[in-house]
């Protein structure tokens, strides 16, 4: 008999990623709606110290597998371990984070269990004792509501970072930790050759609260320095439109849009971006949108909460100075 909600917590270098706290918080809300327990599965190396902290967000028990074989994420080792623990717990719902590794893991676990998976969900709820999920399709041009086949458990979903509210952490609550006895496969078909950490301290686009994006109007790669400076001040990530990426001004990982990243920041500042439908799809769910463009007819102004019709090269330096003043005063 399936019971409870289980989340997959993601650790890197011994600490949880923020999205895991969001997923735990959402798991707590679903578990409360069902009146059932919330557990977590955590895999990695050197994560034993952090594991109880998931209790701050309502996780009752963590099933922890801490082993050098799990230091780096590899589907080959992670999938069998997660699938085995899920099968032994027999939860109704399993939640993953919809980040790069979470998307990878969830798809393979779903296929192994023959379970239904809804990816990149922005809203989850319990209806009639089962999961319902809302998720963007066509990069957010439309949203789909998903339901699961009745009485087929578990129901799997991954949660889009930055869209589900984190509970206020209760540091007095620690999760119990259990170390299940599972064999970690010594799979050697795949290997991690190297990991090159990004030491620039840049915020990832999909997790950023504020994004400053540049488009064709930036005229060249050197002019993005101006956006980098503004982003630094705001603690923001820098994004780009497809035309800026296609021109080779910015790395492809910065691209926002239907063939790039779908982002949901609190504030999106579009600079020199006209607002092609491809781009609007990727950033249209931002809470607030600012557009800076000298063309008053640019489609981006139809989506923007605040529009500045002006030459960006004139406006951005002055705006940056005003932000500096604000930051100095608070």
């Amino acid at each position, binding site marked *: 008999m399936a019971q409870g909600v289980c989340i997959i917590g993601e650790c890197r270098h011994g600490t949880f990623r923020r999205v895991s706290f969001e997923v735990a918080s959402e798991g707590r809300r679903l578990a409360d709606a069902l009146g059932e327990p919330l557990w977590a599965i955590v895999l990695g190396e050197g994560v034993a110290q952090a594991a109880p902290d998931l209790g701050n967000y309502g996780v009752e028990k963590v099933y922890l597998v801490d082993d050098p074989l799990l230091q780096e994420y590899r589907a080959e080792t992670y999938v069998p371990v997660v699938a085995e623990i899920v099968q032994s717990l027999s939860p109704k719902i399993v939640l993953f984070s919809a980040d*790069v590794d979470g998307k990878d893991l969830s798809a*393979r676990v779903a296929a192994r269990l023959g379970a239904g998976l809804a990816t990149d969900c922005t809203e989850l709820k319990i209806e009639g004792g089962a999961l319902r999920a809302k998720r963007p399709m066509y990069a957010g041009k439309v949203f789909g509501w998903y339901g699961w086949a009745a009485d087929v458990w578990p129901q799997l979903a991954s949660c889009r970072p930055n869209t589900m509210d984190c509970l206020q952490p209760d540091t007095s609550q620690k999760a119990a930790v259990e170390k299940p006895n599972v064999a970690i496969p010594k799979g050697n078909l795949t290997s991690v050759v190297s990991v090159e950490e990004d030491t620039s301290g840049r915020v990832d686009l999909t997790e950023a609260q504020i994004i400053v994006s540049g488009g064709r109007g930036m005229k060249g790669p050197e002019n993005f320095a101006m956006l980098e400076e503004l982003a630094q001040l705001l603690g923001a990530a820098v994004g780009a439109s497809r035309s800026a990426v296609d021109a080779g001004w910015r790395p492809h990982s910065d691209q926002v849009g239907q063939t790039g990243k779908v982002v949901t920041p609190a504030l999106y500042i579009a600079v020199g971006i006209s607002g092609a439908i491809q781009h609007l799809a990727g950033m249209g769910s931002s809470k607030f949108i600012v557009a800076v463009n000298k063309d008053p007819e640019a489609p981006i102004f139809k989506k923007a909460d605040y529009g500045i019709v002006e030459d960006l090269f004139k406006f951005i330096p002055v705006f940056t100075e005003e932000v500096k003043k604000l930051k100095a005063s608070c």
Partner: protein
Amino acid sequence: MDIVVLLKQVPDTETIIKVAEDGKSIDSTDIKWIINPYDEYAVEAALRVKDSQGATVTILSMGPQRAVESIRTALAMGADKGVLVDDPATEGSDAYGKAVVLAAALRTIPFDLIFCGHRAVDDDENQVGIMVAELLAIPHLALAVATELTDGKIRIVRPIEGARVTMESQLPALVTFGGAHAIWNPRYASLPGIMKAKKKPLDIKTLADIEVSAEQVGAAAARVMLTAMELPPPRQAGRIIEGDTAQKAQELVRALHEEAKVI
């Protein structure tokens, strides 16, 4: 070296999406269909292997008859043959059901490598390719932005949040492709390519041909199903801030700080 590229036909990314009358599908009138951009990167990656060390590239798709056009486009780019699984019983399949069909079709095609996009830009599901690898019990490497094939192994670069990971897999393996148009820069179908493509083999298969029963796929077998679609709430055009440069900058900072409370 045999490479199979999984290809999905999707609405052009410039398409304005409207919900159809049934409330759970899109209105497909006047839609221009294209190869899913990420699958197009996979085609390009396969053709680069073919160019550098020789390979037979097969395009595999499932979908209605119109998908033939996208397969022919890939053949015109330089792929060697095409297979389309077109069977009305697949209608309404979820990602798992689609993976069942593709995996079954792959059991009838020789392969050392399977390439596909990491997601299709219509359903945005990020799962069919990886599920195919699981059903075939072969390893997968996901979200490649670069590949290198040496000593019988495939090596990829995979960007994750805050790092770039280089991974390697023995063959056979499945690789899903990420990145952007700018890095893969997929080749165009040349006019001679288009002429040649017309003569290349293209098999249309039904579920019976790949030994899948209708009960295994389609809406009735779906574990997860789309029940409703809704458009995002329309955004009202906001306020154009007027004044000289300094006034605009001051007002924008004030509005973001005091009204929106986001800075």
